[in-house]
């Protein structure tokens, strides 16, 4: 009797196992594929827009999607990747937190057979991601820097506010800017500090820099959130009319500030183009395409007072 009971339990377990496998097979065959959208932070409207546009494109292509916020924390990003892999997501549209630190997450997903399409930010590996759709930050900042030099007439004191130090975009922008500005010895950088792409931090950092350097002529910021923070600090110290502020991103408040003459220029990125390209590539991957360019740069356009009418926030018209 005991043997028979064990026998039936074992047999039931075997059938249950088969049923589970069958369930899984049916799910992958019949259910719509899912895209995980893992973004570095949702604390910045630019990335919110990037994530929402990726989700909208996924929906338009008839896929489910879910947005994961890494809060600029690479270990949280790792948790999101593990979740995405174990929850059966079929592609990851990814905005990394760290060019080096995020490589392992992408490699794990790729090893699990999940394609990863990087948006806007780069990882330092040509092989790990299926494709990387990146803003050409360096070139955008070269263009801004030319205008910076012309506007300051090749001389003056300036401050540079950097973004997150672990992000390639921070350095691509800074190096693009310096590849021009450093040719002009009359332009002196009195301070270079990170404000983590954050508006409030930028305000605090510039306020403190202004204590020691009250006579600056310009501030170059690695993104628009920091440009707005810097502008607030300049307003508070009564220097907003004298000091020229340059940003990068094409955020809504900065485009408006350029119209109003408060900010001199910004580099317009096209998050919608990047998000849509990533989702479209994932769709093509599901349909069998495997031959993707490893890197796809997206041109950045400079917005200043005399062409601002051509642009709206985030590259919209």
């Amino acid at each position, binding site marked *: 009797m005991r043997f028979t009971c064990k026998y039936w339990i074992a047999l039931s377990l075997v059938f249950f196992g088969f049923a589970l496998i069958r369930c899984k097979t049916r799910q992958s065959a019949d259910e719509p594929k899912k895209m995980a959208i893992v973004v570095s932070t949702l604390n910045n409207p630019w990335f919110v827009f990037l994530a929402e546009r990726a989700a909208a494109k996924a929906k338009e292509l008839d896929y489910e999607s879910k947005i994961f916020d890494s809060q600029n924390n690479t270990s949280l990003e790792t948790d999101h990747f593990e979740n995405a892999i174990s929850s059966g997501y079929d592609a990851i549209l990814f905005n990394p937190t760290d060019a080096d630190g995020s490589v392992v997450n992408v490699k794990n997903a790729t090893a699990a057979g999940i394609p990863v399409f990087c948006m806007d930010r*780069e990882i*330092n*590996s*040509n092989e790990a991601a299926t494709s990387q*759709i*990146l803003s*050409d930050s*360096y*070139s955008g900042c*070269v*263009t801004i*820097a*030319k205008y910076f*030099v*012309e506007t300051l007439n090749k001389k003056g004191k300036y401050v540079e506010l950097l973004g997150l130090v672990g992000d*390639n975009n921070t*350095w*691509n922008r800074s*190096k*693009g800017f310096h*590849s*021009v500005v450093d040719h002009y010895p009359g332009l002196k950088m009195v301070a270079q500090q990170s404000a983590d792409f954050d508006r409030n931090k930028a305000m605090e950092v510039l306020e403190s820099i202004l204590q020691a350097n009250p006579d600056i002529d310009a501030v170059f910021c690695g993104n628009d959130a920091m440009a707005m923070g810097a502008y607030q600090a300049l307003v508070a110290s009564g220097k907003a009319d004298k000091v020229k502020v340059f940003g990068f991103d094409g955020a809504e408040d900065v485009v408006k500030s350029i119209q109003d003459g408060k900010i001199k220029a910004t580099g317009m990125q*096209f998050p919608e*183009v990047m998000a849509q*390209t990533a989702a479209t590539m994932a769709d093509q991957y599901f349909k069998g395409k495997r031959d993707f*360019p*490893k*890197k*796809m*740069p*997206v*041109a*950045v*356009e400079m917005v200043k007072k005399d*062409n601002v009418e*051509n642009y709206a926030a985030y590259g919209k018209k």
Partner: protein
Amino acid sequence: MKKIIKYTGSVLLVAVVAYNSVYFKKLDEVKAGATSFDAAKYAEKFWTEKLTPHVAKAIEIGQLLTLLQTDKNKAFADHAHALGIGNVKYFLVKGSGIVKSVEENQVMVKIESEREKPEVAIATEYVFGNAVRDASGEIDINAFTNSMDFNNVSGELNKIIREKVIPPFRSKVKTGDKVTFSGAIELNKEHLSTRSIEIIPIDLKIVNE
């Protein structure tokens, strides 16, 4: 005796295998090897082997401007290059003209052409950006592991222009000179403006008869 030969032979074999299996290198050499992309060397090679031969195929600037007016899409499809998505495209152009003025940052040239005859600026001060690197369509971004290496190629190409192309021209050119040129220009397809064209020069000659 046989044992001695056997043991000696074994020791020798192990020694040879060990000698050939292990080697030592200075950490500095290994690190240098890992980041050994030499942008200056790459740019020099690209300039002589890819860019200079390609310049012969550049479109005459007056012809390009006429085509932009009559069929913008064809002009961009046939003659523009860019490495990714976006409105900004680069053209490789050539032409000749008369110098109208020599300014602080540029030389203004009135184009001599059977087609459009605009006044263009040849940049002599602000030689920056990717126009020269990308205009020929001969460079592949996917051959570079790191974007910064790729960006440094632009920097080095522009350095060649600043150091070798511009100084001999700039030191002699004067208003009224006839000049020939080839170079790269940047145009925005979506917001096209041909009013103020700036040429980043690749080759400049004063050809007064």
